[in-house]
């Protein structure tokens, strides 16, 4: 069995007096322990001084009466009745030395402790409910402005990340542009035309560098032009139109026209 609906009001009948005038309203009790506690209350003595034997007798009488009236009794109550009947007999019989089982007095004491405990909790509950309760006896601010918590996103990007991302991105984009576009060069065709024409103007050994187009100022472009002129000089030498000479390693390179034989 379980207790009753949490919101039903408790208007049960408390057994009055010595228990002889029991008002049988078994539904009003929250289980056998509750019934026992109420019966104990009816003894009007401190729970510490309650007679468990008398209590057992009262309980058994209550149950007997309920059965006589054919009231429906939950199993819990009957189990408790059986146990109390047993306890009662143990309490009345002469003591036996039995180490196996707790003595009748111990059993009685346990029951008494349980009753005291339940009573204590019941009182505590009542004391709680009697406190000045928020929203009933004491009140918080009726119209609180409330405390707002505004979340402001903070991005944890560092300069390092920013630069790295930008760098990576620029590298990527420069790769693509380099594969599409041509390198800045002085074309070999142009070098061949220029060297071929200029060789005819001189019979002496002349530094190859002297044939660089003077209008090219950009060093990179000059480097490219020099490379192209060198390649052109090699081409002219291969076809027998020019001679090349170098006096030492990494020394200046000289070129002159070669007379056709």
């Amino acid at each position, binding site marked *: *069995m*379980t*207790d*009753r*609906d*949490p*919101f*039903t*009001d*408790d208007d049960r009948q408390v057994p009055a007096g010595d228990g002889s005038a029991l008002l049988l309203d078994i539904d009003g009790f*929250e*289980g*056998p*322990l*509750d019934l026992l506690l109420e019966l104990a209350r009816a003894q009007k003595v401190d729970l*510490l001084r309650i*007679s*468990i*034997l*008398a209590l057992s007798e009262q309980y058994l009488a209550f149950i007997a009466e309920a059965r006589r009236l054919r009231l429906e009794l939950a199993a*819990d109550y009957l189990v408790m009745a059986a146990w109390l009947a047993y306890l009662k007999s143990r*309490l*009345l019989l002469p003591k036996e030395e039995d180490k196996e089982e*707790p003595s*009748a*007095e*111990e059993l*009685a*004491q*346990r029951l*008494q*402790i*349980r009753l*005291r*405990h*339940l009573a*204590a*909790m*019941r*009182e*505590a*509950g*009542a*004391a*709680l*409910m009697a*406190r*000045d*309760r*928020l*929203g009933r*006896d*004491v*009140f*918080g*601010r009726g119209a*609180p*402005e*409330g*405390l707002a918590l505004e979340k402001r996103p903070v991005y944890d990007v560092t300069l390092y990340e920013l630069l790295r991302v930008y760098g990576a991105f620029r590298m990527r984009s420069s790769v693509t542009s380099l594969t599409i576009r041509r390198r800045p060069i002085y074309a070999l065709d142009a070098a061949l035309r220029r060297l071929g024409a200029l060789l005819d103007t001189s019979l002496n050994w002349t530094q190859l560098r002297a044939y660089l187009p003077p209008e090219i100022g950009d060093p990179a472009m000059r480097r490219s032009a020099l490379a192209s002129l060198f390649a052109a000089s090699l081409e002219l030498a291969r076809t027998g139109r020019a001679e090349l000479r170098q006096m030492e390693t990494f020394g200046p390179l000289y070129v002159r026209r070669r007379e056709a034989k």
Partner: protein
Amino acid sequence: MTVRHDIDHEPEEMADEHLRMIEALLFAASEPLAVEEIAARLPAGLPVDAYLARLEEDYRSRGVNLVRTGERYMFRTAPDLAFLLRREVEEPRKLSRAAVETLAIIAYHQPVTRAEIEEIRGVGLSKGTLDVLMAAGWVRICGRKRTPGRPLTYGTTDDFLAHFGLPSLDDLPGIDELKATGMLDGIDDLFAEAGAGMNADGETSVSTEDEDDATGS
């Protein structure tokens, strides 16, 4: 008066200004505020506890009091003025005896399992009872007990403290007495070793009386 002392380290007008700030925060809040929540909205390093103690004192005699519930603070109307404020609207539904008892058992014995509650009350707990207490925001699931079956355990919430005006669980009515009489010891101990425990508590008179009764009647 270390409290005063702490604040007195600050120039008076600064202290006043900080008191104003805390006052404003507590007034504006719709829920009890934790000390850290207050501190988070104030200049760093203030002795918030000292300020709160000061405000508590300043408001003690007023129509509105500063009270602590759990580790939180809130302003609320003075209890003695309840007669003035009690709302005409019908009271929230009265809790059943079962629910009140269950709440008390949870409050005093937490963390406690459903089986333990049933053990104390000597009756099964209907499903609705815990629901009602949890819906009211007073009871929460604490965790699981380290016993076979790992049953759930229940305990009370901060709202419970706030609702019943309790600074802490140590302020539960009658808790000292209950502790002293061993009522709040482990529930298993309480019942299984009741006999032995009783003697240790020096309440041997009980057992003799029981014996008396047993032999007497």
